[in-house]
């Protein structure tokens, strides 16, 4: 079970049970949807961008503990960041889940280091991030219209 307790760290179990910033965001002006067609996981990310900065971020969707916890933790990390900072954080996160090596200064994301021992689960951990980056790049929509017809 040692690899498993590495994978399912308390931080991850906690975010899975009590997801943060979950649900549609009525004031969102950006939205994107992602899915893993092989496993059926789905994720939507709602952003309120204030210029180049992520003023608010929510996610919604369904999937395994890894995908849900990752999206939840991501929202807590991305709030207040610029688009460029978000990309940087994702690059670090991607290194963590693919190599298992985490720099000390990003302790929360380091909870996902155990994923690297389960290559089939990396796409679960990155689903929310991919969706968020797509939302950042997507064209602005009028607040209140984002999220129509989503999961």
């Amino acid at each position, binding site marked *: 079970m040692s690899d498993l307790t590495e*994978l*399912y760290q308390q931080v991850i179990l906690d975010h899975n049970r009590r997801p943060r910033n979950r649900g549609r965001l009525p004031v969102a002006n950006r939205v994107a949807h992602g899915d893993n067609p092989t*496993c*059926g996981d789905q994720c939507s990310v709602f952003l309120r961008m204030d210029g180049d900065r992520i003023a608010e971020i929510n996610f919604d969707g369904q*999937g*395994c*503990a890894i995908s849900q916890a990752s999206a939840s933790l991501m929202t807590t990390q991305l709030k207040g960041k610029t688009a460029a900072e978000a990309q940087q954080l994702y690059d670090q996160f991607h290194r963590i889940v693919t190599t298992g090596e985490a720099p000390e200064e990003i302790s929360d994301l380091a909870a996902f280091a155990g994923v690297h021992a*389960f290559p089939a689960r990396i796409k*679960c951990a990155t689903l929310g991030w991919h969706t968020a980056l797509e939302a950042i790049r997507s064209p602005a929509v009028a607040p209140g219209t984002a999220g129509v017809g989503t999961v």
Partner: protein
Amino acid sequence: MFAGRDVRSDFPVLHQKVGAHPLVYLDNAATSHKPQVVIDAVSRFYERDNSNVHRGLHALSMRATDGYEAARARVARFINAASPAEIVFTRGTTESVNLVAQSWAAANLRRGDVILLTEMEHHSNMVPWQVAAERAGAVIRYVPVVGDNAEHGLDLDALDRLLTPEVKLFAFTHISNTLGVINPAAELCRRARAVGAVTVVDAAQSIGHEPLDVQSLGCDFLAFSGHKMAGPTGIGVLYGRRALLDAMPPWQTGGGMISVVEFSGSRWKPAPERFEAGTPNVADAIGLHAAMDYLDGLGRPEISLHDHALAEAAYAALAELPGIRLLGPAGRRAGLVSFALQDAHAHDVVTFADQDGVALRGGHHCNQPLMRKLGLPSSVRASFYVYNTPQEIDVLVRSLRRIITFFRA
């Protein structure tokens, strides 16, 4: 033990550990393992007989051709087809369905016609028809899946309403790969024929597990894969009634399927060669021959009893677990059990079970619309075959208990 015989020793892949635990392989609905006799048949072909078929006049080519055509004749016997000419080799069930959806549909499907499917179809018996319908301007209707967890099944009462004269083709699965429901295929074929509809039976989940006779089923087409019946990957079969196959245009063209080629045009060979353009998968057809011999050696009625008994035992044992939702009927079910746990997502279950050496499948099982209807994003499936044992069900249940405890803590 299987009917007094140690079948596990026939399957070399079973004798390994995953991590610290012996492999418990319960993903047979995805693909089954291969007995040594099948592996040997494929190796022997490459070691001794490898050659192209149908064109050569030398010794090896003649042996390869004989082996390939003997495999075709063996398939015909295996499913009681009227003639080997009714057996087309394909890459698998998906390609077999696509062949009918392209070739038969091109010649027979018109605007306003109806294709009838069921809500429990695998994507591979749904998407090809959606494409064919769009091309022809035809309409697709679905026989609903009704009942609660304990008795999911096709709404047979709706069939009379759905089987109108506009229905030109009715395609349905013999056994649901998610629910484990065994559909009354002979009755469905009979009722379809009464309105003049052509029937396509997806036998992917039944061919390796149940005795199967296309003439008593009364189907027009039947599709299956070699790899789910102890045979190799990359080889499958389309059975088609000869009158239908002979009236269908080619779907792929090239060498091997023509009788005369001129610069101005070409003429086709009759079925089955018409539908086998290019060099076929000779080695795996020969491997499939060995697999059919192997299954008949065990006895297909015995295989069916064995798999059903394991699935029913698993269903009963799993029903004791807290927060579990089992899919499909409790009794009279095929050799697989699907379920969802309240406390853990299917993928987390599969990852945990894998650490105990247990190979399961988690996801939508290529049944996205059905899963949506059941209100489940995903489920876990345990599926059984001749080499599985009651002790392996115990391992599965112990593993699931650990998972539930972990995620509830």
